[in-house]
């Protein structure tokens, strides 16, 4: 936890982000997105939200309300690599549940999803597994996004190989699903 506490977004960074968007309508979402992006573990920590609240004079409740409303915002530290499985109906029909089950073999993952969590991060912060309602790529189902790149017609074998590659070493070329 210490490394994560130390990684919190610097207030000068927050000030800079705020001043860049000041006065624009709807700035709150953009500012929050950029603060999250600026954090090492891609999440909004309590201190950052409190600081933002007092700086822009928006009640913390509203900021927290926004952060919990949109699936884009994370309130927990995220892993270095993200794997997002589409759970849309077309993907479901084409077996996305099986892919999710493969990923659930990561220790603790199954329990997290079973208890209603929508995302799971491994303890070593290497991998975050998430689901999305629909990627809009239904003709290519099932689809999985790995670090922002969307892959289509994904098979169980590919997912298993991906996990294997992640475990063994962590070079980016091994993250491609092929």
């Amino acid at each position: 936890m210490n490394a994560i506490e130390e990684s919190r977004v610097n207030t000068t960074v927050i000030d800079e982000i705020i001043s860049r968007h000041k006065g624009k309508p709807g700035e709150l979402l953009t500012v929050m997105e950029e603060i999250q992006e600026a954090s090492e573990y891609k999440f909004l920590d309590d201190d950052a939200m409190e600081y933002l609240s007092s700086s822009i004079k928006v009640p913390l409740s509203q900021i927290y309300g926004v952060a919990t409303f949109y699936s884009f915002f994370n309130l927990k530290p995220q892993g270095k690599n993200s794997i997002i499985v589409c759970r849309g109906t077309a993907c479901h029909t084409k077996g996305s549940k099986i892919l999710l089950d493969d990923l659930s073999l990561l220790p603790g993952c199954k329990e997290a999803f079973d208890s209603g969590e929508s995302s799971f991060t491994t303890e070593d912060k290497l991998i975050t597994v998430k689901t999305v309602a629909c990627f809009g790529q239904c003709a290519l189902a099932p689809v999985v996004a790995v670090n922002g790149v969307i892959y289509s017609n994904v098979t169980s074998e590919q997912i298993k190989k991906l996990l294997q590659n992640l475990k063994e070493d962590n070079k980016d070329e091994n993250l491609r699903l092929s």
Partner: protein
Amino acid sequence: MGEGQKMSTSHLLKRADFIFKSDNDWEDVLKKNLNRTANELINELISSELKGRGGAGFPTGLKWKISSEIKADEKFVICNADEGEPGTFKDREILSRVPFKVLTAIAVCAYVIGAKKGFIYLRGEYFFLKDNLQSAIDEFERYCRKIGFDFSISIFMGSGAYICGEETALFESMEGKRGEPRNKPPFPSSSGYMNKPTVINNVETLAHTYTIFKYGSKRFYDLGVQFSRGTKLFSVSGDTPKPGIYELELGMSLVDFVEEFGDDDTKAVQVGGASGFLVPRKRFPETTIGFQGRLVGISLPTGGSMMLFNSSRSMYNVLDNYLNFFAEESCGQCTPCRVGCQQLLKGIKAVKRGEKNAAYLDKLLKLAETMTYTAKCGLGQSVANSFSSIVENFREEMIY
């Protein structure tokens, strides 16, 4: 097309190619139409009988007309690209393949209503479209400056909430708030984004207005059937040998559709995504795809999602998937939807596990109907569409 004697066909599937036709004449179309009067353009749209392609089907010409007649210091045009309905992916394809048609349409709309600013509300999950779209906008704005048309367009990225496709929730989100739908009225045409008159149209609707402004309303009106004029993009997925996007004339019968896209084992088709209707095989002949108003048979509107299921699919699993989706995406503002979605999900699980008897399904159907009448926005109101059509037609699959 199959030649077999499967079922009698009323008329065959009619394909069209307007939207994705790659004609590089947007500059001419824009210039030509900016030289016409606002009234001429509105009348062109009204006589085309184009209805909104996002699923709700409001007459587009009327929408523009209302906003154009209201006096305000500021007005906005918003292109709704928050395409989140599971099984729909046409807007993504339009924006990546023919962005200039959409931009031109946004600009013409701005000219008609007197707006200086347009937005594209792009779904957060479509982050991969953003860079290309932005360069298209840059080029488009350069041309607008060149011809002396004062107009700019910005992309607003969504942050991952299905409900923000609902127009008033979308405004809330653009204003930096939780995307919770507003009460209507007032409608966006008079009070939308920042409480200013706003025309908000789906990506595909705008792309069709381009077709109309280019070829004239008659060309569009002559396609389709009464009450459902023109063409529509369909996102075909599920158990089909040829998933993808197809532009077809409205008013086709589901029999023809399934003959073209089915795998000879189609048991049901979900028309309109999770918030749409499931049509079982026995209802294919009497069902057509288009807006309501037909005198005979059932006419189903759709945002374009057509998902086919074959006999290997459990409709219980499909419904479970939909209800999980709704329970997750309900914004939580109104009780019927927030609690209703969860109770429906819990209910079908209990019946499946045998903890509740089959008659409990009737209670759930009543609950779904109640949601239709009491939920605040289209999300909660439409849960009953898929719920009731699946439970009523595949009751045995819910139980055993």
